[in-house]
């Protein structure tokens, strides 16, 4: 792919601006969070062009933003954040993506690496069998006729009422795992059909379960509030999304919005940015359906959480109480939400699109759980199979600059086919094992595609987010075992 040759101005150590004058039709400038070392890689493909294209969308305010894990996507860049006025702006399904509410959660445990390590092989096998994973995986849960509608409206609460997980898990899930204002009539029969057999499945691609160990703590006081006590403490991650249901909702509404654009006289430089006014019937129906898909994803992670807890306790031979296994937090990184933000001194209702970006609300924000009110919203940044992951918190600066948003992961920089040419799955497996990481994967070629070398170094991504002040580092973990979907 050709190098991007557009206009880019350095603002400061961590900020790069694409001026409105770059392309006629941009309503606001673009703003990319990156350091000097990363920017060369960012302009190596067309991701900055996508940042500029998003700036065309009606009602966009301030900037078309890109987080430091930005990479070339379809329509929006991955790592893209854009907020549109509800009054006269648009919502774009492409600004959320196909895997609606793809997200990640982390549980703390009372155990140390030394206690878990001797049983790690057994543990990773138990997790692999407990959680259906891989391409086309089907779940163990049989839904009653019509029950899919409960999943779509109640999200995590549906799962907890079904016996999957603890009531207090809801308190530490973004939106309590149950985003309101869902009308399931706006979700197609096809979407429901695709989603029904897949509740409680990990899926494939970059989705995973991970056993991690606290490797470094940057802020002991904040970490303590999350139940992160010491280096060596074992943590468990779950990363997955809304499966075929979310994909179908996105398909259905992208198609609808391609038509709606003619009706509303909207023109965009890439059809994948198809959109409709937030207040139009098409916009409202999409948001309603998207929220249902988001709830599905939370229910999905909640069921998986339950099986992970069961498997962990069984292998370790201890009770859930002894193990701890409290949910620290669950964040989504593909969503559009109606939020109130201050724009030019006035409070404004905005439709904030986060595509491969995480919410990063500061201490005291009403949407941050009471438990974390003094520290800010926890943010989870998974690295990749072989590298570090980070736990951060939201900041005031994020609210002022990025509509309360930050990065979501390491960010891809090598294509899947390039990785398969360079590595085979078995090499990757051996390499990870030599570094003390136990791996189980649905497919060997999937493992090669997700080789750590495919990704930017998550450490540099997080350091930019921290350095720019849009989130604050709390702790990091390193993996000791991974189940790859």
């Amino acid at each position: 792919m050709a190098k991007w040759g557009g206009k880019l101005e350095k603002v400061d150590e961590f900020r790069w601006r694409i001026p409105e004058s770059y392309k006629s039709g941009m309503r606001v400038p673009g703003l990319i969070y990156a350091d000097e070392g990363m920017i060369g890689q960012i302009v190596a493909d067309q991701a900055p062009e996508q940042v500029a294209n998003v700036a065309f969308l009606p009602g966009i305010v301030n900037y078309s933003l890109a987080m430091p894990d930005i990479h070339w996507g379809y329509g929006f860049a991955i790592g893209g954040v854009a907020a549109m006025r509800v009054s006269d702006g648009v919502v774009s399904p492409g600004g959320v993506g196909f895997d609606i509410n793809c997200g990640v959660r982390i549980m703390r445990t009372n155990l140390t690496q030394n206690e878990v390590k001797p049983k790690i092989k057994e543990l990773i096998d138990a997790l692999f069998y407990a959680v259906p994973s891989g391409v086309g995986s089907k779940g163990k849960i049989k839904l009653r006729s019509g029950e899919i509608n409960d999943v779509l409206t109640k999200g995590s609460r549906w799962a907890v009422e079904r016996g999957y997980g603890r009531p207090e898990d809801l308190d530490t899930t973004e939106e309590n795992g149950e985003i309101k204002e869902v009308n399931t009539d706006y979700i197609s029969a096809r979407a429901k059909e695709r989603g029904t057999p897949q509740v409680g499945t990990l899926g494939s691609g970059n989705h995973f379960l991970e056993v991690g160990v606290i490797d470094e703590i940057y802020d002991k006081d904040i970490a303590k509030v999350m139940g992160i006590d010491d280096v060596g403490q074992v943590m468990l991650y779950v990363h997955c999304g809304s499966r075929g249901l979310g994909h179908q909702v996105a398909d259905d509404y992208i198609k609808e919005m391609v038509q709606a654009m003619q009706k509303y006289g909207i023109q965009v430089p890439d059809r994948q940015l198809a959109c409709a006014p937030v207040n139009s019937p098409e916009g409202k129906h999409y948001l309603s359906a998207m929220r249902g898909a988001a709830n599905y994803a939370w229910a999905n992670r909640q069921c998986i959480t339950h099986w992970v807890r069961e498997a962990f306790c069984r292998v370790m031979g201890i009770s859930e109480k002894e193990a701890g296994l409290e949910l620290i937090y669950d964040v989504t990184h593909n969503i559009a939400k109606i939020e109130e933000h201050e724009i030019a001194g006035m409070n404004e209702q905005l439709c904030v699109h986060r595509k491969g970006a995480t919410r990063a609300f500061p201490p005291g924000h009403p949407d941050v759980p009471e438990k974390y009110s003094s520290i800010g919203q926890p943010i989870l940044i998974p690295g990749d199979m072989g590298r570090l992951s980070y736990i951060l918190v939201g900041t005031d600066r994020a609210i002022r600059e990025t509509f309360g948003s930050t990065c979501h992961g390491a960010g891809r920089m090598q294509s899947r086919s390039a990785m398969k040419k360079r590595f085979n799955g078995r090499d990757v497996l051996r390499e990870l094992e030599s570094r003390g990481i136990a791996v189980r994967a649905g497919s060997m070629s999937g493992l090669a595609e997700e080789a750590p070398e495919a990704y930017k170094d998550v450490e540099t991504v997080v350091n930019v987010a921290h350095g720019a002040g849009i989130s604050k580092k709390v702790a990091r973990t390193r993996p000791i075992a991974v189940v790859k979907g």
Partner: protein
Amino acid sequence: MKKFELIEHTADIGLKAYGKTLAGAFANASVGMFSLMAELENVGEKESRRVEVNADDIEGLLFEWLNSLLYYFDVEMLLFKRFDVIEFEDTRLTATCYGEQYDPALHSLKMGVKSATYHQLEVDREKNCVQVIFDV
């Protein structure tokens, strides 16, 4: 003639498919998509489904066609390997799709395809060639 070739894309994967006719290029795009998902060599033709899709224009038709086939994979676990296009217009495509249900003992799956996207989607009527990027 080559049926299709893969296109490099940082996060995802795409393909260019060719045909003697545009209908043939649509059929080859679907062969390409399923060959990303599974090794098709061992897939038989025990099952067939008649698939009809409609769209507002030819680009929309390609998007709809490929995504409809993904629906059959999610719901019935059907891997298709051959496509007979029966009717083909700018806004309508009818085809019989042949393949079989995924069986872990016989078939090896490679990659999950979430959806075809509109990003860089191209239909070239002169060259009977189509291009599509998938979210994987």
